[in-house]
Structure formats: C-alpha cells, structure tokens
C-alpha cells in the first residue's frame, strides 16, 4: 500500500434518525427499530415489520432516496471541511430507486396516485443516475461510479475508493450507499421466505428465523492521509485493510464453511500487516439473522483467524437496524467507526439463546466498553460475494 487512507467525515441516516447520536441511542443501546411499516399495504405479506423511519415530508413517495443521499453527503462534506467544487470521486452502492419502477407500473395500470410524477423521475431507477445526482448536488468534480452488487455494493464502493487513494490515483472519495424500505424489494424477500417470522431479527441466536429490512443511507469521506494532513483535517479513523472474495458455491446461499468470507477477511488482514488478527478488537459481522448466514459466517470467522476467533467480540447490528441491503456496507462501516472512536461495542440485539453452530462472543443485547485499536467489518451478498474492511484508530 503506497498511500494511507483516512476518513474525515460522514453522514448517516437510519430508522433511528439522522446522525451519529441517533445511532448511539439506537444501535449502541441495543434497541430494535422494527415496527409495522405503513409505507405500503403489507396485507399480502407474511409480516408487516421493518425498521423504516416514520415518513416525513420527503417520504418514499417522492424523491426520498435522492434527498437522503444529498442530506448525508452534505453532512459528510461539512464534517470533513471540504467545499463544493472539490475534486472527489463519487462511488455509490445502490441498485437504484426501485419505487420509480413500481410507480411506473402503477401509473400504467391506472392505480398510481401520482402518475405524472412517476413518469418524471423514471431515471432514478438507474443506479448510475443517482451517483450523478449526488455528485452534481454536492458540486463535486471527479469520476463517478456505482456499484450494484447487492448487499456488498457500498462496501465494494469503499474498497474501490481505498484502492484509488492508496495507489495515488485520487486524493478524495465520497462513498455512499442507500436503501429505503419499499414494497418491491419487501415482496421479493417475502417470496423468498427470507423475512423473520417473529417480528425481530435475532442474529446468531438458536431461534433466529430470518431478516427484516431497514432504512439506511450513509456517506463517508475517504481521503489520502497526506491530503488530510496538508489541509489540517482531523482523521476520524484510518482504513488499513480491505479484501473481497467469492464463494463459488451458490447463486443465493453462502458457502456453508464461509469460505469466501474467510478469504476476504484474510486478504484485508494481510494488507493491514496482521495476518493472524492479533490487533483486532471487534468484528462487525454481516449477521443477517438467517439460519444459513449466521452459522456459515461463524465458521468463516473461525477459518479467518483460527487462533483468535474465540477471543474477539463479534456483533451484528442488524438486530437493531434491520438489513440495509446495498447500504449495509457503508452504514455498518460508520457503526464500526463509532465503535472505534467511542470505545464501545454495539451489541447483538434480539439475542435469546446460543446456537451450538454459532459459538463466538456475540456481545448479546448490551453494549460493552472496549479500548479498540482495530476493528473489522464484514459483508456478504447474493452470488457469494464477500467484503472485509479493517479500521484503525488514528
């Protein structure tokens, strides 16, 4: 690695609200945000539950995804002290605003309340268009690229930014991810019987029954450490390792031994100069709360650092936020960053009883103080894609 990568700003929004303090009150307190959602008729589905924020003036029926990205982007750039006109890459993880697809077909069927509006924002369904809108709205010049690889999309955007910065190609990257709960995706997960049956997400618990979706939007400002030093910006955390690997196993299920996840984690740790994970004090797991994922992930973590796995606290914050899909990588990056900055581990909420197949220290239900030097955040996705990022206290 030729150049160090540091984080100088962020903006975040979840069902708990906007900003880091909302995460501290919700995620770090172990409070699940699941309620019956009123954004659409949940009658046809097996559960009405999701971690969706109460709808405000920029609710899903409007331009919500675009607005939320702009809001988090402005917050992130303000914190970083970077002005409009900055040359920065904009790297976004999203599959587009799928509400515009739903509205199109509602309009075509004559069942849409705002058919005209739906037709005016057809392009918001295009992932790359949202990156253009974000870059344009923030006044950033530089390359734009959108990652669409499902639940690792925004983690992939961060990894790409790290590569661009560490290789000296760019100085600043604004990385983002966005998902807001909507019916099309909700229906698909329901049809795949992936949603929790008891209205809670219970990662790593023996009685876990599935995931629930949640709102998540976040922007992080990554910068070369030298660039940040030159302009006197305060580094919040450094990113010292990253990795990505594939399971080569199944189109939708994880490898039962967590092979790709272990490979991604090992790659990230090697880059961080800590092949056996001896400097790690915390792992923010993908932990979806599904039978398949959590057991496989546990085995993958054991394979990644066999000597250390039992002594490193691991938690999944999806028990509070729900699964944020394309935004999971960047929101959980922010949560991991706060853990390092605050010295507090967020708990695995909703945990009831241990599963013999999930036998690590999952920080059940209550936050835990910890003097962290480094932490690892992991994500996985359909197609067997896995990502890992190592964060370090400056």
């Amino acid at each position: 690695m030729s150049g160090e990568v540091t984080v100088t700003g962020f903006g975040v929004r979840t069902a708990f609200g906007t900003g880091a303090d909302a995460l501290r009150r919700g995620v770090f307190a172990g409070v699940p945000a699941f309620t019956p959602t009123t954004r659409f008729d949940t009658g046809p589905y097996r559960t009405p539950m999701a971690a969706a924020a109460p709808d405000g003036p920029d609710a899903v029926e409007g331009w919500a995804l675009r607005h939320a990205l702009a809001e988090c982007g402005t917050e992130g750039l303000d914190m970083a002290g970077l002005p409009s006109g900055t040359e920065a890459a904009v790297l976004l993880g999203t599959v587009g605003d799928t509400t515009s697809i739903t509205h199109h077909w509602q309009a075509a069927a004559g069942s849409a309340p705002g058919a005209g509006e739906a037709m005016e924002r057809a392009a918001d369904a295009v992932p790359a268009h949202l990156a253009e809108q974000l870059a344009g709205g923030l006044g950033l010049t530089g390359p734009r690229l959108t990652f669409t690889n499902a639940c690792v999309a925004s983690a992939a955007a961060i990894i790409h930014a790290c590569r661009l910065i560490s290789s000296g190609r760019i100085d600043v990257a604004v990385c983002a991810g966005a998902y807001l709960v909507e019916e099309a995706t909700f229906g698909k997960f329901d049809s795949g019987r992936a949603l929790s049956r008891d209205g809670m997400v219970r990662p790593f618990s023996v009685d876990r029954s599935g995931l629930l979706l949640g709102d998540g939007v976040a922007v992080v400002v990554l910068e070369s450490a030298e660039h940040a030093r030159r302009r006197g910006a305060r580094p919040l955390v450094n990113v010292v390792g990253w990795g990505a690997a594939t399971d080569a196993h199944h189109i939708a299920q994880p490898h039962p031994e967590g092979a790709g996840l272990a490979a991604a984690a090992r790659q990230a740790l090697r880059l961080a100069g800590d092949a056996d994970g001896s400097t790690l004090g915390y792992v923010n797991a993908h932990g979806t709360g599904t039978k398949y994922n959590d057991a496989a992930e546990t085995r993958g973590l054991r394979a990644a650092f066999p000597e250390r796995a039992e002594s490193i606290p691991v938690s999944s914050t999806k028990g509070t936020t729900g699964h944020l899909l394309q935004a999971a990588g960047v929101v959980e990056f922010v949560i991991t960053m706060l853990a390092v900055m605050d010295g507090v581990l967020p708990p695995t909420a909703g945990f009831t009883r241990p599963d013999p197949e999930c036998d690590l220290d999952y920080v059940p239900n209550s936050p835990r103080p910890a003097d962290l030097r480094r932490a690892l955040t992991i994500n996985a996705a359909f197609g067997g894609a896995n990502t890992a990022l190592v964060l370090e206290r400056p």
Partner: protein
Amino acid sequence: MTTGNVDSVEKAGEAGKAREAENAEKAEKAENAEKAVLRSPLGILATATATHGTGGDDDTPLPRLSGFVESVFSPLAYEVSRRCLTERPGDGSRTAVVLASLQGDTTTEDLAGQRMVAGRVHNPLLFMQATANSVLGYLSREFRITAQMFSLSTLDDPVTELLAMADLLLEDPELDRVLVLGVELGGGERVAAVHRELAAGTGRPEPDTPASAGLAAAVLLGRPGAEAPVSVRPAEPYDVADHAENPGAAGHSGSIQGLFDLAAAHRRLLRHGGSHLLATDPAEWHGPAAFTLTAHAPGTNETESHAHQ
C-alpha cells in the same frame, strides 16, 4: 570574461530554465500518468460477443441456466463469460470479474413490478435472479472463480470504466486476470422512458434496440505478454488529437457498443496484425478517452481509426 560570465550566467539561466521546463514536463507527465485511465498496458486474452433477438448476425441461442427464468440478462452474461473462460482457462482464484450494466436486469425488474401491481404472488425465482450477483455466483461456481466479483452501473462509456477497473485490479499481486463484461437489454416502455429522461438536453441518442433484445460482450484481460497477442494501452496524444478533429457520434448513456467494437478490433488484429485506435464517448467529468490496440504477432501493418457509435 564578462561576456563569458554573462554567457555562462545566461547559459546557466537557460540551462536552469531548460531544467525547469524539463521538470515541469516530467511533473505534468507524472500527473497525467496518475490521472490516465490506464497506468499500464493490458493484454487481451479473449473476447466474446452475443446478441439475442436483434435480428443481426450475432444472434445466438442462449444456454438454459438452472434457476434463471424469463429474462435473457443472465444467460447472455453467462454465455459471453463462458466463451472467454473456456477459450483461455486459468486459475479461478486469481481471476476477478467485473460486470457493467446501466440498468441491470430490467426484464426481471419490470416483470416483478407488473406482477406486484396486479396483486399477483411474487415469484421467488425472480427474487433469486434480480441482482447481477446471481449470475456472477453461477459463473463462479462453474469456473471455480473465488477472487473478487463486482457489478457496476455507469452513464459513461463502460469500456473506459472496465479497462480502468482491470488496470487497478491487476496492480494486486494476488490477481492475474480480470474478466470484464457488459450486458444491455432492450426493455419496454419504462426503459424507453428512462432513456428519454437521460437523453433530454444531452444530445445523446436514445437506444434503438428492440424491446425484447439483449446484448452482451466480454473481454478477458491480463498483464501483457506472450499469452496475449494483442495489448491495449492509452492512445498517444497525437492519435487522440487526430481523432478529436473527427469524433464519432456519442452513443446512448451506458451503451456497451464500445465493447463490441473492442471485440471486433481484437478479432481483426488477431487475423491481420497491426494496430487500432478505439475512442470512447466523452464522460461528464473528463474528455474522451482513447486506447490503442496493438497486435504483437507477425502480421500486416494495418492502422485503423474508429470511433464507436
């Protein structure tokens, strides 16, 4: 003496200016090298293209993939990838894959959306195949690819983005090859509305691909060398300047036509040798990028200039 001194001073001054100019030139070159789309040449190991439902010569029967229904997106992606990976087998643990598609699998998305609006039960198979990750997962299993796989959406020319991505990934000593591919579906009225909105005020055309048609192209890239008889590198500035005087028409947003042009040039260079200038559509944040493809095997000294449209 004085004259000599003056001369010396002047010469020293001239030499200093020359050094300054040289240093400035070096700095500019270094800066340009850092900003160039490609830092190093890439070797082209294999290319493949396939179309479905266009009525053109490239139309091909597509494989049936277990678990994938209704849409040609995944079969097209798989078919062009399969051809490249079969033609040039390699170590899957050192092979990365990057798929670019402006809108992804619009057939699946629209089908799922229409069913939902009509109050029909969601089809779990549409859930499974909704993301491009799914076909990448299928591909990874078939070819034992365990390195990283990404999927992208870009409004710019995917050729530029994919070559840049391969260039960056091949700096990783754990990788030897990057398979890049693009997939584009015709789409129906919603996709047409999207393109109308994207094209408004840009001067870009809207695509004329038939609604039920699909296109895909793949390029297997590695580091240049004996295994890659054709290499691709950034074009020299004078080539680009020559081309800029007569630029080709810009394609529609995210068009993968450039990948087809790259594949056609690769095939031609393998047969006849020579070199080929491939210019890409200008991006919002930079001008047009241009690449030179060069055959290293003996052949004729053909030089072509071609802008894809």
